[in-house]
């Protein structure tokens, strides 16, 4: 059996890659994808700890996280479409309403 530590380390790597993608990318859709990667890294951490504690409560939590992520994706993409309709762009550099 593979020790759950390996999965924890992988989840750290994935989470940091998600944060990095969120900072580097310049368009709203890809930044939104980076958020999904971070959520998945959290799911992996939950499952590996559930495995090492030998309880399936962690799996139920992951089930809820996936549900929340799905509804978050629907609302977030609607907001992105709204921004696109009003500003005609989804690049974060061009959306500077509060920059003066």
């Amino acid at each position: 059996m593979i020790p759950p530590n390996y999965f924890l380390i992988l989840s750290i790597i994935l989470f940091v890659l998600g944060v990095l993608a969120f900072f580097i990318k310049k368009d709203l859709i890809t930044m939104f994808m980076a958020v999904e990667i971070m959520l998945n890294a959290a799911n992996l951490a939950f499952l590996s700890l559930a495995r090492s504690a030998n309880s399936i409560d962690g799996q139920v939590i992951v089930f809820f996280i996936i549900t929340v992520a799905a509804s978050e994706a629907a609302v977030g993409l609607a907001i992105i479409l709204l921004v696109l309709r009003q500003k005609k762009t989804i690049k974060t550099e061009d959306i500077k309403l509060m920059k003066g």
Partner: protein
Amino acid sequence: MGYFLFFLLAALCVGSVLGMIISKNQAYNALFLIPAFASLGGLFGLLEAPFIAVVQIIIYAGAIMVLFIFVIMMINVQKGVPPEKKKWTLYLSFGLAVVLVIELAVALKAAFTLPVSTETLKAGPVNLGRLLFTKYLYPFEITSILIIAALVGAIVLVKKKEQE
């Protein structure tokens, strides 16, 4: 065999996320995420969570990525973002990432030395469903309200205002 599968799936996952970071095209970004989520589903299967693995592939690699690609389809895919003039933001984000790795490793150090249970986990859909409808009944019901709210919110947001 287990180790081979783990490293294969982990490499596939990290590789496709790196591909997403490097690629400039939004459509390619979305396509890169599909193998990432699918291999994560395989990793969930290795962690003895077969039901979650299937849900992951159906909802993430299926539904959510279709939603993303649908929105990208509505947006004209522009030809890449012009190269960043301010290089220092790039270096700053790499520095922040390194700091975050160290911080998470320190935070999870206690978890690395946890005793590992060697018993097999009884995580079939039957046990999961039983837990969902007894111990986690209230969160489950609240989730349904959340989904309704998200659906109505998304429709109201995108709906065009009627001309008066």
